[in-house]
């Protein structure tokens, strides 16, 4: 196993603890539970599909996934610093960009492992209820896009400040949920709205597509934007590991 894989493995083990996983999976499974209850009623496939999309986006992708991703990302390197284990990682003959990239991969991986459980459970329930098995494409793509964005952006912030999780939640609930929703021109500055543009591209005709603001639907574009966010975060994390104090 090379050093990069070793870092990814240990970071994943640190981020994916049993208690945390149970909590996160329950959180991410709320849309599936809602769908399970809804499917026992007399709603038709169209209404069930609409409910699936609104709960999956409104609960899983707009709240649960960003919160989980922010917790994972801020802890990926931040926990090393806060728990004083950074020497075991930093005092090694490994380029700083490689350490940054490995922890980001772990951060995104930890988030995706939870998100895909939530998306997958919802997809199974919705698939059985509506008979439409392509219904999960939009959520899966949006989850991937969002996990890359949130899961990388907050890694350097976690390294630089102890209040990274609070900063992340303020960004999420103040900036994304309030300002970017209220002002159409601010939508491109919101990771959640970019993820929504991927969602809407693969699941057209959704009622909440109006909240895209000035963004155009496009899964490819959304993925590209998030990869740019990831690259910028990688460069910033590498700089921070190189220039800032690590203890």
């Amino acid at each position, binding site marked *: *196993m*090379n*050093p990069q894989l*070793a*870092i990814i493995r*240990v970071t994943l*083990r*640190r981020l994916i*603890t049993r208690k945390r996983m149970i909590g996160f999976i329950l959180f991410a499974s709320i849309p599936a539970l809602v769908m399970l209850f809804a499917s026992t009623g007399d709603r038709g496939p169209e209404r069930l599909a609409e409910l699936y999309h609104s709960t999956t986006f409104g609960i899983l992708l707009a709240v649960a996934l960003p919160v989980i991703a922010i917790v994972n990302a801020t802890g990926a390197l931040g926990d090393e610093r806060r*728990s*004083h*284990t*950074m*020497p*075991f*990682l*930093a*005092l*090694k*003959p*490994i*380029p*700083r960009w490689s350490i940054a990239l490995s922890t980001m991969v772990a951060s995104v991986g930890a988030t995706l492992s939870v998100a895909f459980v939530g998306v997958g459970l919802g997809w199974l329930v919705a698939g059985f209820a509506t008979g439409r098995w392509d219904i999960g494409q939009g959520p899966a793509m949006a989850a991937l896009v969002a996990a890359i964005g949130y899961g990388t952006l907050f890694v350097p912030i976690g390294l630089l400040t102890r209040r990274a999780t609070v900063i992340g939640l303020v960004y999420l609930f103040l900036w994304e949920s309030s300002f970017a929703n209220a002002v159409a021109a601010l939508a491109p500055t919101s990771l959640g709205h970019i993820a929504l543009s991927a969602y809407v591209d693969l699941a057209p005709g959704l009622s909440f597509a109006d909240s895209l603001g000035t963004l155009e639907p496009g899964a490819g574009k959304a993925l590209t934007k998030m990869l740019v966010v990831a690259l910028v975060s990688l460069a910033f994390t590498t700089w921070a590991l*190189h*220039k800032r*104090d*690590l*203890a």
Partner: protein
Amino acid sequence: MTMAAPASPTVVLQGVSRWFGQKVAVSEISAEFGAGVTGLLGPNGAGKTTLLRVLTGLIRPSEGTVSVFGFDPRSDYSVYSRIALVPEDENVYGFLSAHEFVAHNARLQKVSDPDGAARRALDMVDLTDVADRKLAGFSKGMRQRAKVAAALVHEPDIVILDEPLNGTDPVQRAHLTRIFIDMGRQGRTVIVSSHVLHEVERMADRVIAMVDGRLAATGTVPALRAAMSDIPLQIRIDCDRPRRLAAALVENDWVGGINVEEASLHIRSLDADQLGRALPGLAQSLDIRITRVDPEDESLESVFRYLVEGR
């Protein structure tokens, strides 16, 4: 107070200072480290840990330069294949077993057989029996030993140990001390920070004392003591008539004070040489039988106490 620097220094600090806001943690330290064990001494808050962090590149110096094998560790990470740090902090990856932890460090050091190297390192610190137990369940002393194993797993040329004996029992201390001494004898640079002075005295060829972030003294323990000729020496003299001898000695200006007991006296001498020259003559002229003369403060403890309190 200095002594000759190592012939082939592996670590060189030049004018290193580090401050945090208004607080100066390390001030203008220049020192060289080479093969053998060097003890880094100082009370809490002296700046030892900060200096070791600067030395390893974990934190930047505010001023000055650090060179490890001729390279700055903050810009050339390849030197980390030759360095190991055992940090003071107790925290380790509690979710890993001792073997996993040490093997992980071996992998990050690109050791060719990480599991084999981990087994050997754990055996060296007597943790083989508990190698598969999670570190979270380890005592402080066991964690210390696991950290030492993780540091030594790639057989580094420079080993930096920040309070490595903390939490270990006497048997473990003796064992770890032996390991550090052996590494020094093998020609490795071993830097041990500690406030347990007699242990450092036992293992270190050379001592660097820090006080208030500054370099207070460097040298071997005996050399330090000899160099500090202006430090009052406490000397115990056992004799049959201590009061009479005390009365004769107290007239001399090189005697700082005398404490008389039933069969001995403790002299605080400002000039040990003068005392050594005067004592036989006094004893003979006063017909006093002296049975023992012992310096009471030759230990590093006393030197260190003087450095700390005398400033």
